[in-house]
């Protein structure tokens, strides 16, 4: 592999990693602040993708579809949180796992009922449907660059909120000691609902912008879920910085692993996770 192609693979890894970060950030917040293991997180990604597919077909415009889909996703998050998660805060992790596992089944099948079992594609939206020439025979989709840009901007926004706003302080405090925060008079209930909705929105949004890049197929949430769990565990539960670097590491490992060690490629991320847990059981940035 020469330098040019190494650079392109670097770009590929970065793009994949940034998208992972968007999904993982929601997961780590929910994990860290609310203490909830949400297995249905991947299903949210899938719902985002299907919503944007459906609405793009309806409106004929990708951007309009996203605009409409985001509130729908937030609303869904609110409903799930109020209906089901309410009872789980004080309960064992086991029940959270089970309930959210049941949710996956319901959501996956609901998707099948509404949109069927076929595989779909969303066309790459204008004005990003061009490609730029990277090497003599390889082009790179401008849309992918756009996605990377969006993820970076959002990463910056999230980081800014966490580090430099009052809300951010409350979030960080809540991750460290929920009871204390409650004792200080902050309405933890509302905080949780907010966090969950934001987490769901981020994930669904990731699904939306990723839609033109992947196949929209049943069960697409399941594979991304496991990868995101690995990202969060590597980065440290509750840490946005950890989610970011964890996602980049996993993105690079997957991309380079696929071409350098194809026989081990799919196991690479788990090996990395095992290694991290052996050395730093709480994750890299806990």
């Amino acid at each position, binding site marked *: 592999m020469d330098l040019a192609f190494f650079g392109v693979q670097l770009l590929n890894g970065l793009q994949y990693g940034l998208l992972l970060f968007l999904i993982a950030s929601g997961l780590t917040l929910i994990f860290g602040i609310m203490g909830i293991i949400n297995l249905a997180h991947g299903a949210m990604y899938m719902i985002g993708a299907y919503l944007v597919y459906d609405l793009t077909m309806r409106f004929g415009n990708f951007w309009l579809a996203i605009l409409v889909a985001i509130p729908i996703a937030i609303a869904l998050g609110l409903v799930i949180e109020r209906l089901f998660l309410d009872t789980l805060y004080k309960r064992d992790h086991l029940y959270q796992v089970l309930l959210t596992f*049941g949710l996956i089944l319901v959501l996956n*099948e609901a998707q099948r009922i509404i949109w069927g079992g076929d595989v779909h594609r969303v066309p790459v939206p204008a004005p990003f449907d061009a490609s730029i020439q990277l090497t003599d025979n390889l082009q790179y989709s401008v849309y992918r660059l756009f996605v990377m840009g969006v993820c970076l901007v959002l990463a910056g926004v999230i980081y800014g909120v966490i580090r430099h706003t009052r809300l951010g302080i409350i979030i960080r405090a809540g991750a460290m000691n929920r009871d204390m925060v409650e004792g200080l008079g902050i309405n933890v209930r509302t905080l949780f609902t907010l966090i969950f909705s934001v987490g769901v929105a981020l994930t669904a949004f990731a699904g939306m912008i990723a839609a033109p890049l992947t196949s929209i197929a049943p069960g697409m949430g*399941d594979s991304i879920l496991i990868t995101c769990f690995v990202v969060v565990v590597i980065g440290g539960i509750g840490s946005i910085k950890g989610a970011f670097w964890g996602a980049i590491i996993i993105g690079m490992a997957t991309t380079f692993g696929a071409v350098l060690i194809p026989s081990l490629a799919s196991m690479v991320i788990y090996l990395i996770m095992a290694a991290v847990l052996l050395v730093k059981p709480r994750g890299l940035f806990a």
Partner: protein
Amino acid sequence: MLHRYPKRVAYLMLVLTALVATFPLWGEAVFGNQANFMLEKLTLMLILALFAMSLDLLVGIVGLVSLGHALFFGLGAYTLALASPDFSPASMWWMLPLVIGVSACVGLIVGLLVIRTKGIFFIMTTLAFGQMLYYFISTSQFAGGTDGVFIMFRPSLAVGDTLLVDLDDPYSFFYFCLVTLLAGYLFLRWLTRSYFGQVLDGIHDNEHRMQALGYATSGYKLIAFVIAGVMASIAGMLAAMQYGFANPAQLGWHTSGEVLMMLILGGIGTIFGPILGAFAYEILLFVYEHATTHWPILMGLTIIVAVLVLPRGVAGLMIAPPWARKRRTTANDAPEKATVSAQPVTQSKVD
């Protein structure tokens, strides 16, 4: 925890066992030519019951929630599939010890790495290891990849030339699984009431306290982990014999999730609960599959309802039925109503 349950539980379980054991007698009368198919289903339920029971040791007794238990299930299936010679049956005399040996080794290695973690991290690492093996098998040449491995002949159980039990015969295999399940149950029952079991209870209650009392808690947890893994592998071996097939999906996290569902449907921590849970799960699955092609929604809703409304599962209903609970508030309760709760003490959130 005494793990002793009211007499009615024992009676009900004995009746159910008798019902299952005598299926060959009444099966055809009730199911007609579907009887063979039902026998297959019943055998599968027995195998899954063993699988679920093994997980209960970890989740219910020790309090370690594993989302990767399918690793051992699939391991048993693949050990059988890969060790079986292509064109002749293996012998159970070496196959069973092989499965036990392999799963014990893997259990030990994985356990050493995984026992160090607690709570959410334990869930994550077990999930990760399960997935690791899943991908390893899926992408490997020798293990047939995503399509799995065939087992053309079930292992034989013979002494010299005389066949003790013909495992190719569905009825004999059914009884073989039933006996294995009962053996597993009795073993776990004895284990949980032994000194070892009481230490496990203590660890579940409060690990720090046990450590302060001088117990090497990691060692106990590891042994429990290995035992659970070995039992699950035996179940996997039986499953492979039933299907004639080992497949990576048996290792995946969906399978791990399904067996957890059986636990909650049945009743965690009771050992006999998961048996009921496995049966309940399979029966529900059968009913739902025939009701609609969109049966996963029904199953998902069932689990959600079970978590919210019936967290102690079917066993919980048997142990403390709703009509009995009211009487518990009176001071002079009849001794048999003073039931021990099947619900494990809620895990402390301090991870």
